[in-house]
């Protein structure tokens, strides 16, 4: 996964595509979905760090999004702090929670880590629901301010296209950061942990520090995404930060291609747009979704990106002949 010129061109093509995307969208609703998809890119890049590279499935990402979203909203609503500041503080708050949850959770391996993180997501949900004095319970928080000086400012972030570009900048930054991490020595240790954790220990590296790093960074990404989401929707309630949404993050990484940088981008768009196209299936949606997850794991464990690169390789062979 080194940053070759070919990869660079691919990333550039994706970026250019995303920059010009809004001018091709005539239906406002699709623009809305694209904003959501970009927010999910941020979550998925984090999920990919811990799941795709380190090999630990965390099912707390939606919970972390919740912490980020409530963090930024409460700071803004209760203390009147500027939106830009609270968006930046939110990931730090999330990191703190992740540090506390991650330290004991990472003592168990494999499946059990997933279970513990999942339980942690349940706890976040229960607390958000029941701490009504602070979170307003099921009714949620309303009137979360938009960034910038609102409609009076130089840039109107209440405008959907403007917010799209804000989120695009954020998603690009996060993706670049993820690429930087995985291409560094740190990233190679993470992959080594996925492949053989015992060997990493034998090589004299404290695997738990690296695992905790990946986990906390993944949570920070999710918290950041949650904050962007809160200001975009102006409304949040606990309902949107449940295990089901955490599963979406897992699915995005698997579907897109785990352990790659482009995978989570494709996966995030897939998990936002796919359910829209499955609308016709109504309540069977969940069943189809589950089936896709199972079939994807069995038949294309390397995701869409893996499938595409296989197809490309095959094509090249044919052409070379």
């Amino acid at each position, binding site marked *: 996964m080194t940053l070759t010129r070919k990869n660079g061109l691919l990333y550039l093509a994706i970026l250019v595509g995303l920059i010009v995307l809004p001018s091709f969208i005539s239906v406002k609703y699709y623009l809305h979905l694209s904003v959501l998809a970009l927010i999910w890119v941020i979550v998925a890049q984090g999920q990919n760090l811990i799941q795709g590279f380190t090999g630990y499935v965390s099912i707390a990402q939606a919970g972390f999004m919740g912490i980020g979203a409530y963090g930024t909203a409460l700071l803004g609503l209760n203390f009147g702090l500027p939106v830009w500041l609270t968006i930046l503080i939110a990931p730090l708050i999330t990191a703190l929670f992740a540090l506390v949850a991650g330290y004991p*959770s990472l003592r168990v391996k*494999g499946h*059990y880590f997933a279970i513990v993180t999942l339980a942690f997501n349940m706890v976040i949900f229960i607390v958000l629901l029941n701490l009504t004095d602070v979170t307003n319970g099921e009714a949620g928080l309303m009137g979360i301010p938009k960034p910038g000086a609102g409609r009076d400012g130089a840039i109107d972030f209440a405008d959907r296209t403007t917010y799209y570009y804000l989120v695009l900048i954020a998603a690009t930054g996060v993706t670049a950061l993820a690429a930087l991490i995985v291409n560094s020595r740190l990233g190679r240790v993470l992959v080594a942990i996925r492949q053989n954790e015992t060997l990493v220990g034998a090589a004299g590296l404290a695997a738990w520090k690296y695992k905790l790093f990946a986990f906390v960074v993944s949570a920070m990404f999710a918290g950041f995404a949650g904050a962007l989401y809160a200001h975009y929707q102006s409304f949040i309630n606990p309902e949107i930060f449940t295990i089901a949404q955490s599963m979406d993050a897992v699915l995005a990484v698997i579907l897109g291609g785990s352990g790659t940088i482009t995978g989570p981008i494709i996966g995030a768009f897939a998990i936002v747009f796919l359910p829209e196209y499955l609308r016709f299936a109504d*309540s069977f949606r969940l069943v189809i979704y589950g089936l896709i997850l199972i079939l994807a794991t069995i038949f294309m464990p390397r995701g869409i990106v893996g499938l595409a690169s296989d197809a490309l390789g095959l094509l090249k062979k044919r052409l070379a002949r």
Partner: protein
Amino acid sequence: MLELVQQITNGVAIGSVYVLIALGLTTVFGILGIAHFAHGSVSMFGGYLVYVLVAFQGVSLWLAIPVALVVGMGVGALIEFLAYRPVRNANHINAFIIALGLTMMVEGLNLQFFGADQVVIPTGFDRVFEIAGVTIPETRLYVVLAATVLVIAMTAFVEGTKTGQAIRAVAQNRDAAILMGVNVRSIPLIVFAMSTMLGVAAGVMVGSLFAIAPGVGEAMVVKGFAVLILGGLGSIPGAIIGGLVLGVTEALAAGFLSSAYKDVIAFVVMIVVLLFRPQGLLGGAK
């Protein structure tokens, strides 16, 4: 004091349900190494099945339960064969993601077939016993009794039969078991059938003690895993003691602290055990 005894008694009944869930999970994990996350949802499917048979088809409870148990065994074997077998030799993450997909599917099917309302299985056991000031509803008594019988039956099966011996052999050393002529292809099917049967029994108990509703299965399976972490992974006595400890702790927390946060207890207990005894209460030193 009486209140304390009352809460502990309540806790034992809930704990029995956790024990059954955890036993199913621990056999699948200990023998096949699969964290079968869909276990809770499949259990609830069993509970719904009994509910529909009894409430809508007018089937007697004594017929409906065995039918659900047998269906459960079939479903368990089917899940192993169709979903887990293809990833038998892949990374353990793949099996876990399959489990997540299965959970979504089973939850979706439950929703499709049985609706989103919460349902209570009509058992007709309405008597309430009072022993030395402690009230025990009839249903709770039967739940504890049934759980005890199932645990003993399962232990007898695993310890005393030829098949049980083969199962233990596979758990200890798969390769050696193959060399000794154990049919390792059928063992996972049997294990899943047995485990799902226990899960369905637990689902029926949840349905008659409390209620079945979407999401209950997921909560159950999380508690089941909390029990395993508490008792030690893959240990049957650990699952029994862990289940009872969690049940009683929850009942005490609900009675004396706050019922809204009682579900947080499982998580707190899990984290504390992980911090101080990662190998579980009964697990040996690694």
